[in-house]
C-alpha cells in the first residue's frame, strides 16, 4: 500500500510511524519528517495520527529533547564547577574549551511544555549586519572571514559565531574576563552561550544589541547604511548609539530595521515587522545563508567532517583514528557546526572540543 493512500488510522497503526512519534528510532524519525514535509496534502491526516499515537502511548517519547535538557544541565554543572575551581581563563589561554550544548533545531515538533526551568537551555543566536565600516578602535582580538563564504569561530566563553564573507568581529579587551562585548562589521550569526556573569553585547554603527537571555536568534540583511536584526525566540534589547534613552525590546518572530539615513516616511528611523518565513519549510529566510542541510547515508565521520569543515569554515581534526570510521545516516539541518556535531552525537556518541582555531573530535 502506498503511504499516499493512507488515512489517519493507517498511519497510527503503522509501526514505523509509531516509532517516529515516540522517537524510538533515528531512521524512522528522519524518514517521516522528510515524508511529511514532502506531502503537505497529507498534513491533516498525519497530524491526527500523531495525536492518536500520543494519546495512546501516554505521551511517551521526547527522548531527544530531554537528552538535550540533560546535556545543557550537565554543561551548566560543569561550568559552575570550573568557575568555582579556578579563575576564568582569558582569551590567550591555550587550554581547550568545552563547548556548551546548544538547543536543538531538528527533531519533530514536540507538543508538551518544556521540562524543569533550571534545565532549560540556553543558547542565543544573533545575526546582525552593517554595511559601513567602523573605524578601528583599540581591540584585543579581531577575527575576519576574508574571502571564505563562511567562517566559524568559537569564543572563549563558549559562544560560536559564523561570519559571512568579508565580515569581521573585534572582541573588546578583557572579553570573557571583565565583559562579553564585541563589535561587528558586516554580517554574522551568533550562537551565544549562557553566562550570567557578563551580558553579551554586540556593538554596531547605529545600535548596540544586548542579549537578555533565553533562546533566540537575530537576523539581518545588508541594507544601505542601516541595520536589520531578526529575533526567533527570547529577548534582545536594541539601544540606539546616538540616543542612549532610546531602546526597543524585540519579541519573538519580529525584526527591526533601523535606517541610518534618518527618518522614514512614517516619521521614525526604524520599523518593527514580522519575520520573512519561507512558505515551504517555515524557516526564516534571514538565515538561509548559514543554514546547512546535511544528508548523510552511511558515511564515515571522516567524510562528514570534511563536508562540515568546508561549509562552516573551521578546521576539524581527529585525535583518534577509530572515530574517523564511525558511520552515520540521517538528515540534519543546523545553523552552527556545534549543533550539527551535537545532532550526530545523539545517534552514536563521540567527544569534541575546541583547541585554538580547530575543533578536535575524539572518542
Amino acid at each position, binding site marked *: 500500500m502506498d503511504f499516499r493512500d493512507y488515512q*489517519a*488510522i493507517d498511519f*497510527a*497503526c503503522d*509501526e514505523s510511524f*509509531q516509532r517516529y512519534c*515516540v522517537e*524510538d528510532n533515528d531512521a524512522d524519525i528522519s524518514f517521516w519528517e522528510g515524508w511529511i514535509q514532502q506531502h503537505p496534502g497529507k498534513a491533516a491526516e498525519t497530524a*491526527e495520527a500523531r495525536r*492518536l*499515537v500520543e*494519546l*495512546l*502511548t*501516554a*505521551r*511517551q517519547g*521526547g*527522548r531527544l529533547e*530531554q*537528552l538535550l*535538557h*540533560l*546535556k545543557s*544541565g*550537565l554543561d551548566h*554543572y560543569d561550568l559552575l564547577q570550573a568557575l568555582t575551581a579556578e579563575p576564568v581563563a582569558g582569551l590567550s589561554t591555550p587550554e581547550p574549551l568545552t563547548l556548551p550544548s546548544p538547543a536543538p533545531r531538528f527533531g519533530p515538533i514536540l507538543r*508538551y*511544555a518544556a*521540562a*524543569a526551568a533550571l*534545565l532549560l537551555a540556553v543558547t542565543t543566536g544573533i545575526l546582525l549586519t552593517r554595511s559601513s565600516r567602523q573605524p578601528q578602535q583599540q581591540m584585543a582580538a579581531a577575527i575576519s572571514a576574508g574571502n571564505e563564504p563562511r567562517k566559524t569561530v568559537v569564543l572563549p566563553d563558549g559562544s560560536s559565531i559564523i561570519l559571512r564573507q568579508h565580515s569581521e568581529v573585534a572582541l573588546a579587551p578583557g572579553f570573557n574576563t571583565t565583559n562579553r562585548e564585541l563589535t561587528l562589521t558586516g554580517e554574522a550569526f551568533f550562537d551565544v552561550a549562557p553566562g550570567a556573569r557578563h551580558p553579551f553585547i554586540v556593538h554596531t554603527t547605529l545600535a548596540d544589541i544586548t542579549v537578555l537571555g533565553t533562546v533566540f536568534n537575530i537576523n539581518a540583511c545588508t541594507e544601505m547604511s542601516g541595520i536589520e536584526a531578526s529575533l526567533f525566540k527570547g529577548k534582545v534589547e536594541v539601544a540606539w548609539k546616538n540616543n542612549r534613552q532610546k531602546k526597543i525590546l524585540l519579541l519573538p518572530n519580529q525584526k527591526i530595521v533601523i535606517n541610518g539615513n534618518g527618518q522614514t516616511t512614517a516619521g521614525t528611523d526604524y520599523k518593527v515587522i514580522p519575520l520573512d518565513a519561507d512558505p515551504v519549510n517555515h524557516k526564516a529566510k534571514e538565515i538561509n545563508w548559514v543554514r546547512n542541510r546535511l544528508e548523510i547515508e552511511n558515511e564515515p565521520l571522516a567524510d562528514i567532517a570534511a563536508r562540515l569543515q568546508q561549509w562552516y569554515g573551521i578546521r576539524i581534526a581527529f585525535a583518534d583514528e577509530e572515530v574517523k570510521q564511525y558511520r552515520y545516516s540521517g538528515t540534519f539541518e543546523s545553523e552552527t557546526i556545534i549543533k550539527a556535531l551535537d545532532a550526530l*552525537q545523539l545517534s552514536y*556518541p*563521540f*567527544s569534541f572540543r575546541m583547541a585554538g582555531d580547530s575543533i578536535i573530535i575524539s*572518542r
Partner: protein
Amino acid sequence: MSTAATNNTYWEQVRHGDKQALFALYNNTYPHLLRFGLKLCGNDELVKDCITQLFLQLWGRWQQLKPVTNVQAYLFTALKRHLIDQLAYQARTHTAVSNWSENEENELSYEEIIIRVQQDEEVRARLHRAMKSLTPRQTELIRLKFFEGLTYEQIADRTSQTVKTAYNTIYDAVKTLRRLLK
C-alpha cells in the same frame, strides 16, 4: 551483549567519569524509566523531569558511585525516590504517595495513565468514554502496542494469534477511538 550487560558496562564507565557513557546509559534506559514512572504517577512531565534530575545527580557524584549488579533496578528505585520527593514537595498527592509501599502493587492501570497525562478536562472525559467502549481484549492489545511498545509480531506471540488478527483488532480499536474522540 545483553541490555543488562551493556548497562553494566556503561555504569562502570560513568563511575570512571565518562560523560558519553552517561548519555548512552540514558538513551538505553529512558523508555523503561518513563514507563515505570508513568505507572506510578501518570504525569509524563514530572517523570521526564525526574529522569533528567536523576542523571544530573548521578553525574554530580560519579566519584562516589558504587558498583551495581542490576543497573536498571537501581535506576528504577532512584527514580521512584525522586518522584516521591517531588510529589511530597508539591504536597498535591498525599494519598498517592502514602499508597506507595515498597512493593509495586499499586500500579495505575493503562486507562488511568493515558487519561491522567491529559491536561484538558474535556479530552479526559472523552477519552474515558471512548476507552469504555472497547472490549477488554481490544484494550489489552492497544496497551501492548502503544504503551509497552511491542511489535505486532510480539503481540501475536504473546496472545497466541496471528499477526494479521492482532493488527486487525488494534486497527478496529483505533478506528472506534478515533470516531469517539472526534
